């Protein structure tokens, strides 16, 4: 279990993390979600005792990282896949890590097998693709067979097959009772991997909840309705208390009612319907809406062309 209480960290005048508290429970995959630059990596580094918090504490099973006697056997982390000397072979890289925590040599081969790098174990890491480097980073996290695993953007650079592999690996690791904390800036990815969510923006907590709750509490049920008699239907629906807006293509976007009630009302008024479909806001949209104020760097939409 990971427990952060009142974590704060500034770099100069920039507040990277501000009074952040959350809990990550064992046996579940917890997604750590936030736009780029929202403080995810800073938080990860503070969990590992690499950056010193200005205020607050973060503990793993009640103890600070610094106090762990054999840290790799309790906590595995993938921070940056490319943070490896390019001239060293994958096997010797892992062996040098294993030695720090008195992990036997056969475990190096085990994790190489596990991540599918056994055949390139002797190859220099500098020649690895980003996807292979991610796998090597995952192997190093698993080296000590730890109960807590931190992954910072583990799917970056992976192909679809690799993404699926990571997703299943994380789930099976959680199924073994481990605590899995995985960061991403992609909501859609988290929705497919995690069951729990810690969402941050500009270093502050936006939500600490389950993925399902996060979606349902942040989406408004809307219904898309098409009818040849849209104008009359809009009046009817408004009269039953729904809110109606018209989409670009003339379809009605109805909120504040259900598909059943809309269908009944249309039938009662003798209006034909061509479409009646419940809409779910995409997770990406929910996430975007929620973190819109918390994004540090907004892109401008479209370049201004001088006339």
């Amino acid at each position, binding site marked *: 279990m990971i427990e952060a209480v009142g974590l704060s960290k500034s770099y100069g005048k920039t507040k990277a993390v501000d009074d952040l508290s959350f809990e990550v429970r064992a046996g579940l995959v917890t997604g750590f979600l936030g736009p780029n630059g929202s403080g995810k990596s800073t938080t990860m580094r503070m969990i590992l005792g690499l950056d010193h918090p200005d205020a607050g504490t973060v503990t793993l099973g009640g103890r600070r990282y610094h106090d762990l*006697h054999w840290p790799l056997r309790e906590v595995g982390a993938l921070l940056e896949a490319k943070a490896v000397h390019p001239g060293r072979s994958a096997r010797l890289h892992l062996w040098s890590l294993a030695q*720090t925590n008195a992990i036997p040599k056969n475990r190096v081969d085990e994790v190489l097998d596990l991540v599918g790098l056994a055949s390139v174990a002797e190859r220099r890491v500098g020649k690895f693709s980003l996807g292979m480097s991610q796998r090597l980073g995952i192997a190093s996290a698993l080296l000590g067979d730890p109960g807590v695993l931190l992954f910072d953007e583990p799917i970056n650079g992976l192909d679809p097959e690799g993404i699926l592999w990571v997703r299943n690996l994380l789930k099976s690791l959680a199924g073994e009772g481990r605590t899995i904390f995985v960061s991403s800036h992609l909501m859609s990815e988290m929705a497919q991997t995690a069951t729990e969510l810690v969402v941050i923006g500009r270093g502050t907590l936006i939500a600490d909840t389950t993925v399902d709750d996060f979606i349902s509490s942040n989406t408004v049920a809307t219904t898309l309705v098409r009818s040849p008699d849209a104008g009359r239907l809009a009046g009817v629906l408004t009269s039953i208390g729904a809110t109606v807006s018209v989409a670009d293509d003339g379809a009605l976007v109805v909120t504040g009612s259900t598909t059943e009630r809309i269908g009944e009302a249309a039938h009662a008024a003798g209006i034909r319907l061509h479409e009646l479909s419940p809409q779910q806001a995409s997770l990406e949209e929910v996430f975007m809406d929620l973190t819109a104020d918390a994004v540090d760097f907004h892109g401008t939409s479209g370049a201004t062309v001088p006339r």
Partner: protein
Amino acid sequence: MTTTTTTGSPLLATAPGRAGLRQGILSEWTKLRSVRSTWIALLVIVVAGIGLSALISNVEAGRWGTLGAADRAQFDPVRFSQAGEFISQFVVGVLGALIVTSEYANGAIRTTLATLPRRTTVLAAKAVVIGAVIFVVSEVTAFASFFVGQAVLTAHGGKTLPEGSTTLTQVKSSFIPVATFSSTGAARAVFFCGIYLTLLALVAFGFGLILRHTAGAISLFVGVLLVIPLIIQILPSSISDSIEKFLPSNLGLAMIVVTTRKTDFAGVLLSPWAAAMTLAVYTVVIVAVGGWLLARRDA
């Protein structure tokens, strides 16, 4: 789907002991030996040491016939055999800096500090490994260079000095002096050559810890060895005379020369032991500052 199998021998987090210096040293040694640049650099130390010893000894022996009595008195067969030190000091500087700055360059320092959360342990492990490796290679090279140098001098007709004599006393000698380990100061000079290089590697290691940047640390190191002496020389001699002997490069010279060269070096060089102690103090201070910063700063 692959399953995560645990090891046959479970990795108990509650096992006795903790990740400490022993584990750190083993890991740092694996890291150092597993990159090609280490071996290239060590090879340069050996080749430069032995090669320059042969070359310089050969050149100096060839000039013997043209030397006057005063110059013959300062003929230092030990010093000539350690000429490779001039090149090796930069090589050990690069190695000393890289053991820390290469990890800052690619971010691996975070992995290192996560595997061994006690930063003083990381500092000690790196210092022990780079210090020990440089010490062994430098000493082996220094002794091998000594024998090669003396062999070259002997080939030019040089003769072994009487036991216990210093090279300086051979003012009237008509033959090229060849040193043995019983020659006064010879064993000390050769041994100190390795010590000098080891301390320099640790100085560069300290610079690496402080600056966390390869080019910066190496520039500072080269600046201290080459540029500062030039600046000091421009100063009025009343000032420069009192400073010069404390420059690392002159401390090294004091550690390695055998002739006291009263005429050349009167008051300019410290005694060999004083020089070694001074350089050791510099090293401890620089590494301590680096270690303090390592413990204090975010990784």
